[in-house]
């Protein structure tokens, strides 16, 4: 059943609420510096977090279900080394495809993700500053931090935090990571996730996502979100639901799993005597397996009883990748021994 109510979000990194309905035609008080387009909101978030010292990264070049899957979050939240990154991550949730017709459900959408390790003491204030930066007038709106703990069964991860409400609408998720890939987070990372379409529709006062201005509405060639994405939403909805070759996808899942295992089983030291743990290539395979599972799920070929088993298989990969990453220098582990380097 691919009805409107498919509650399958547990397969994604974010279990709840990051893609729910969006209010229509909100009468945002138009401040003089209110943003006018989807991209302007993204640009403002970029500038804001860059000014606050984050490395502005680019999206990860693989299909993922949520911004958390980007190794800049999953892997970098592990280990002792400080980290501060912000990026947009295109996210795919095949079961949420609605052929571009639903005002607020998409199989491909964007998340804005910030990860700072260790979480700074003023993270809440920094976050509220970002809302002001994208045009939310703090004196007129009611911002609330409402309990919402996060758990990702696929990543073997959990944290405590809130969903942030603006006038009753969830605008972000705010999480203090406690465990990722089965490892305790020490220090703890603070993670912020903004559902960009929903947030932008709210700020821009748009009812249907496809009507949202993508670039400046006064530009010579003004484009809406629909101009950019309606066609692809239709195409991917059809492919996700009807056409994707399930036998091939199943094989790819098995292949990704096997390759991940093979990579992680390799010796730390290569033929030339260099110690190189291949955590990231292995993690790519884990991401692949996760997305393939989501595609199979959208095709309706995974039974209820099999679901847990598949999720468990992906989690097993994620844990092994985390085990590998924490042994690397990027995670703050001791560098490879001198003897090895001089060999």
């Amino acid at each position, binding site marked *: *059943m691919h*009805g*409107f*109510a*498919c*509650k399958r979000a547990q397969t994604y990194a974010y279990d709840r609420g990051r893609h729910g*309905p*969006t*209010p*229509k*035609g*909100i*009468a945002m*008080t138009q401040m003089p510096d209110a943003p006018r387009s989807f991209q302007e909101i993204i640009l403002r978030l970029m500038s804001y977090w860059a000014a606050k010292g984050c490395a502005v990264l680019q999206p990860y070049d693989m299909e993922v279900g949520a911004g958390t899957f980007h190794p800049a979050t999953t892997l970098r939240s592990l280990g002792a080394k400080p980290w501060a990154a912000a990026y947009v991550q295109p996210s795919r949730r095949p079961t949420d495809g609605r052929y571009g017709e639903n005002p*607020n459900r998409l199989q491909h959408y964007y998340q804005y993700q910030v990860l700072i390790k*260790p*979480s*700074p*003491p003023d993270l*809440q204030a920094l976050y509220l500053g970002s809302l002001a930066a994208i045009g939310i007038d*703090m*004196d*007129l*709106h*009611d*911002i*609330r*931090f*409402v*309990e919402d*703990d996060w758990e990702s069964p696929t990543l073997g991860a959990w*944290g*405590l*935090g*809130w969903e942030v409400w*603006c*006038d*009753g*609408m969830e605008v972000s998720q705010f999480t*203090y990571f*406690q465990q990722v890939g089965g490892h305790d*987070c*020490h*220090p*703890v990372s*603070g993670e912020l996730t903004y559902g960009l379409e929903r947030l932008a529709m709210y700020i821009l006062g748009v009812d249907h996502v496809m009507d949202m201005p993508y670039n400046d509405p006064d530009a010579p060639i003004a484009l809406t979100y629909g101009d950019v994405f309606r066609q692809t939403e239709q195409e991917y909805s059809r492919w996700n639901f009807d056409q994707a070759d399930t036998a091939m996808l199943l094989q790819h899942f098995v292949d990704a799993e096997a390759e991940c295992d093979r990579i992680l089983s390799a010796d730390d030291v290569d033929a030339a005597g260099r110690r190189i743990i291949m955590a990231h290539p292995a993690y790519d395979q884990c991401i692949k397996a996760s997305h393939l599972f989501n595609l199979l799920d959208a095709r309706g070929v995974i*039974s*209820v*009883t099999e679901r847990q088993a598949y999720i468990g298989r992906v989690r097993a990969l994620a844990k092994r990748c985390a085990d590998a990453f924490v042994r690397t220098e990027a995670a703050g582990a001791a560098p490879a021994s001198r003897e090895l380097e001089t060999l």
Partner: protein
Amino acid sequence: MPDMLLELFSEEIPARMQARAAADLKKLVMDGLVEAGLTYASAGAFSTPRRLVLTIEGLLAESKPVREERKGPKADAPDAALQGFLRSTGLTREQLEVRDDKKGQVFFAVLEKPGRSAPAIIAEVVEAAIRNFPWPKSMRWGTGTLRWVRPLHSILCVLSDEGGNEVVPITVDHLTSGNTTYGHRFMAPARLTVTGFEDYTAKLRRAFVMLDAGEREAAIWQDAQNQAFAAGLEIVPDAGLLAEVAGLVEWPVVLMGRIGEAFLGLPAEVLQTSMREHQKFFSVKNPKTGRIEGFVTVANRETADYGATILAGNNKVLSARLSDAKFFWENDLRTVGAVGLDGMGAGLANVTFHNKLGSQADRITRIAALAREIAPIVGADADMAEQAANVAKADLQSAMVGEFPELQGTMGGYYARAAGLPEAVAAACKAHYSPLGPTDDVPSDPVSVAVALADKIDTLTGFWAIDEKPTGSKDPYALRRAALGVIRLVLGNARLSLASLIATSMIDHYHRLYRELSLQRRSGIAEAASELGISPFEVERLKMEADKRKLQAERPELLADTGIDERVARTMLPYTIDLLAFFHDRLKVFLKDEGIRHDIIDACIAMPNNDDLTLLVNRARALNAFITSDDGTNLLQGFKRANNILTQAETKDGVEYSYGADIKFAETDAERGLFHALDAAEYTIKPAMEAEDFATAMQELAKLRAPIDAFFDTVQVNADSEVIRRNRLNLLHRIRAACAPVADLTKIEG
């Protein structure tokens, strides 16, 4: 006498944890202070989303010195004993005193604990409270190792008296206490310096923080009611939501809005659930139409536009939510119209209930069969009960229940009516889940009762058959609640043999599990055969013989009445007996609330037909009233005395004294009086018992009290004449026999 103020200021504490946390803080700190010798006059605890606060009045300025004497080993004890004593007291050999004791010279330690100042004790106690705080879930943040529910930002701790105030210095990891805090996050974020509790609450109020959750609740409720009243509407009361909302705001501002016309046709439960669960809105009802027409939201601040922007935003969010709900509702109605309610539930074949108990569809098939069996007993039409069971869970596959799981059953009722199913079937969709808790209403419609019983019994027998019983505090499938549900359903509605229903249901599970069981048994038999040196066939034969004997002894009716395959019944018998015992345990808990002692219930459980819970409870209630009366207590003593003498004689003589007491051998009036009294009692008790009139039977037993007392006062049972002795023992047996059909009085204590 100084007063103390403590505030733990953090990021937003989940609403559901705040009240408990305030109480825990109070208990931890007060217990710690008292234990350290610091007593107080009164204390109060408060919570807001960002703070836990404790205020104490009339604290001692310092604890009293304590002198403690401890007795040690004998003076000539081995050195190891002395060293141990020195370690435990922290003294040296020279500091010990040697005193004369009854057994010789003994070491004594005199420990003097000097009084300590309040700040020193407070600092220690508060630090321990913070480090050991019992949050249901806690976390670390930044680089620290301290755990709190969310990051803890500051500790305010001030001790004040007429002379002034001082900060109690407390250090917990990177946090150091002070005398400052902050106001409302948005309306007055500046730092405040406070001197004591009064100053604190006054300054907080000016900084838009209402400290007392009770006051916030009252303010919200009052304002919401006023606004609704002014519009000719009324708020639907919801105490749980009120408490939650009061935990989400420091400065409550009530805003009321109207639900869009397009959504007013949605079922009231859908509107209420959607608003409550997702938006934490109160529902506002129009008393004239009875419909939910508006909502109340509680903001955390005042704004220059009097909340207009906030209300508009909330209204838009609600519209989006309700558009979804409307879409689900219309979609589901279309589905039901096209394929019927059973068609909607077709997908349940693919939904696993439990991996050992099959799919939801398997379960529904079993429940439907069992509901048919139960129907005639509870006065329901068997076909209708089966039909109701078949569709009662279909709404689990509806879009609406997918979005709002708490509407299961409720939506089924709506969809059943839309599909034109009989009202009894529609009602069963919701009612078959009842009763959910000890205070939940018990359904009374026969069809609902049949399906509700079948649903719960199937759950219980299923988990018993796969040996997943509740243990200790673990009851993941809520089996205790299911058993209580069965008890309450039966007591309210039916006379039935629970054992035969359990057996019938257990057989159904058996057929599913048979393959697995037989595999296991085969390997067990092979093992036993090699151990005993006999053939596997011989083991199987012996085992069957043993099982059969046990079955015939314990529950012959399972073989005789129900027509159940003997072999199957035998296999499931231990599970059936065990589950019945579980019901009896739950019944004890249930009756304990009525003040009926467990031994009184045991005396009734020991009687035949103890699986007829209505009979069992009637018997227990009557026996309880009887035993707690004066006559009952004395009769019990008489019975026990008779029974003891009789049992001793029977053991000694190796015979059973059960028949042949003859009044012609009676020698005294007391003896003859007992004969006549027993004749009279038996005459009345027998028909009363046949009519299950326990009260009359027990009143009649009570009349035996005086004759029995008189008998024991004047008659020597162990007479010299063997004939007389035997006659008297046989007479005592008549006492035992008269009491026997009422209850097993030997089980009663005292």
